[in-house]
């Protein structure tokens, strides 16, 4: 089930590409595949139906049918429709001037509310707020302990109240925030089934008692068709404002995001993609649509790289690269950055074709460590002047790293390929945002290039790099 949506669409469209002009039957054939893929991505059956009907209508417009490049246009139609369905712009969390702001989290059992609460707190704290976490799950054993532990880890106060009455805890929690100069209150509530009237009523009463600025529903990215029933009931009983999609670091396509948008009209606000506090990212509809269509979240990767990379160092690297002096030192730096960004798999997942590489088991995270060990076993001189590395040096390096000469040769080969690759890729990568200064700009481009080259050299040749334009 892994790469179905993107893989299949890529398949269909490469089929279309070779055909030139499209007939109505071609479009229907393509859309049948799209339909199947969407279903396998857990987009709700009824949502799929409407989606396909819309796409069909638009595809049949003369413009698409008679253009010189109809397959491109079909892709565009599907992508546009998908993006439109996801919400056309990224929604920002805007806090009001009211102190404290109240954010309440709701959702099914096991959807990831508690972790999301901590991540949200971490994010707000990072942005200069002083959040307070309030533990209103009094049912699940040790739920408050869990929140407490997470709060302690990120240095955010957790309010537990009497640990008995969720409504009272929520209310006094807000009071506590006021008294202790906390500007945002994040209320973690117990997981509940949408058909549990008593519990849904409790959620409504917590809402009433605290008048939240935002209510977020936390939704597991793996949720299937039932998402429609769940979201509908939560929307009508507590009327949430937005959605946090959790467990996005898995390989679920997250078709539920589409369904929930369509059914409730509520925006997806954040995606949660990992177990660490910093693994909460804003949601970009266009990226999600692209991810679903297998076109890769290139922008996301660039941003992550920018966040992580030391600008100065990156600028130097870029400088050197432009002069084609890419060395093992740079290679090692890039490697470390890839690791920092969550390893190859995380990076790859966002790239076109990356899913396929992942699925086919071409990615071995241990490989990074091996390469690192080999480079570490080189002398400083060798690292700066790769040309120095002859046969006897290779033997020494292999010994030092505890590997075979063959492995060293492989790394050298990859290094050389990367170097070549980078030369080719110059100019292919989008420049950074304007207004960040020259150095930063170069740095970004340089980093991206390096990383892509790296991945290329790791044997991921199936990737379609032309999409990076």
């Amino acid at each position, binding site marked *: 089930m892994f790469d179905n949506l993107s893989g299949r669409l890529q398949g269909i469209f490469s089929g279309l590409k070779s055909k030139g002009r499209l007939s109505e039957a071609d479009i229907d054939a393509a859309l049948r595949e799209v339909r199947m893929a969407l279903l396998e991505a857990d987009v709700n059956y009824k949502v799929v139906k409407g989606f396909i009907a819309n796409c069909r209508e638009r595809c049949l417009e003369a413009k698409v049918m008679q253009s010189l490049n109809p397959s491109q246009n079909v892709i565009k139609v599907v992508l546009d429709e998908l993006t439109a369905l996801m919400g056309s712009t990224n929604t920002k969390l805007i806090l009001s001037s009211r102190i404290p702001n109240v954010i309440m989290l709701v959702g099914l059992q096991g959807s990831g509310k508690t972790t999301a609460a901590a991540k949200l707190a971490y994010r707000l704290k990072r942005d200069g707020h002083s959040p307070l976490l309030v533990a209103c799950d009094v049912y699940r054993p040790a739920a408050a302990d869990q929140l407490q532990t997470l709060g302690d880890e990120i240095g955010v106060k957790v309010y537990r109240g009497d640990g008995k009455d969720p409504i009272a805890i929520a209310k006094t929690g807000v009071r506590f925030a006021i008294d202790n100069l906390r500007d945002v209150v994040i209320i973690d509530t117990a997981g509940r089934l949408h058909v549990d009237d008593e519990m849904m009523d409790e959620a409504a009463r917590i809402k009433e008692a605290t008048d939240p600025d935002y209510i977020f529903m936390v939704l597991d990215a793996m949720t*299937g068709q039932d998402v429609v029933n769940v979201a509908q009931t939560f929307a009508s009983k507590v009327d949430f404002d937005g959605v946090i999609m959790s467990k996005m670091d898995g390989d679920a396509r997250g078709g539920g995001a589409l369904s929930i948008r369509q059914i409730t009209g509520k925006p997806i606000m954040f995606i949660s993609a990992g177990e660490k506090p910093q693994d909460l990212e804003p949601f970009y509809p266009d990226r999600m649509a692209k991810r679903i269509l297998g076109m890769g979240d290139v922008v996301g990767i660039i941003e992550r790289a920018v966040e992580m990379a030391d600008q100065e160092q990156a600028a130097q690297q870029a400088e050197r690269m432009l002069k084609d002096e890419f060395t093992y030192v740079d290679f090692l730096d890039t490697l470390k950055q890839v690791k920092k960004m969550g390893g190859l798999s995380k990076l790859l997942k966002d790239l076109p074709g990356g899913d396929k590489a992942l699925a086919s088991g071409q990615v071995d995270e241990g490989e990074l460590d091996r390469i690192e060990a080999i480079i570490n076993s080189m002398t400083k001189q060798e690292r700066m002047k790769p040309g120095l590395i002859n046969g006897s040096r290779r033997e020494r390096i292999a010994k030092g790293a505890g590997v075979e000469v063959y492995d060293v040769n492989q790394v050298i080969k990859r290094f050389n390929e990367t170097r070549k690759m980078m030369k080719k890729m110059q100019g292919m990568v989008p420049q950074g945002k304007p207004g960040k200064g020259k150095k930063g700009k170069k740095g970004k481009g340089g980093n991206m290039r390096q990383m892509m080259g790296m991945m290329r050299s790791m044997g991921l040749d199936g990737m379609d790099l032309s999409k990076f334009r």
Partner: protein
Amino acid sequence: MAWFDKLSRGLSNTRNSFTESMNVLFRRGPKLDENFYDDLEETLILGDMGFQAAEDIVASVRDTARRKALPDAQAVMDLLEDSIAQQFKQAERDPFTDLPSLVLFVGINGAGKTTTVGKLAKIAKDRGDAVLIGSADTFRAAAIEQLDIWGERAGVEIVKRERGADPASVCYDVIQRGEETGAQLILIDTSGRLHTSKDLMRELQKVVNVTRKRSGIPVSVVLVMDATTGQNGLQQAREFNKSLDLDGVIITKLDGTAKGGIAVAVSRELELPIYRIGVGESIDDLQAFDAHEFARALITG
């Protein structure tokens, strides 16, 4: 009898939604035409059975119905029920009653592992078995405390270590303690993880290997899966099975409106039995799995 009510309530929720869908079908009349079978497929897909499984099952039901010249929709529905039930692999051994037995619980974050361990411990304890539980979730915040409370509720001893300890060595401790006390049923909780995390899957593999090697009693590895899971559930099951060689599955949260149709696909493809179903958050909310009842719940209510 409160628990019994709850069980049937849980099941009937599952049934109701399906019945609703099916009623729509029936109002269309008993004519066994294209639409009838399309709608059948739709209902199964909406129940998370997956496009492929739904298509296969409906196609074969349709064939048989034509061959046997089944008279009406009701007869076809009966056939469908049988076909669905037949997709499930029968358990050869019940690791919770065929003792001695050691069971490791694995699965995605929040699937219901810890709760299920608590429920099963209670049932075995009430039956008079010597039960021991172990907390190999040394990763998630307050996971040990959570299982501790379940241990208390069930009146069962728990073996644990501090957070961050090596989960494999916890299993070692549990087995040792089990041998000392003569435990007949040992239940070990592990931390939730995504099947896509190579490192965490490797870690779990080590836990399972150590346990299989060290244990003097039969070891089973059970995947706990949330009934709301969509098609990714199949991928989950595949990966967990590939890494750990699973023995069976427990489906939780069937007290909601999710139909748990993915269980059909999982059992069918990986030939894994469903041992139990979870139908609520209380200690008694666990039920035996009955393929026919499950299938009937899906279709007729």
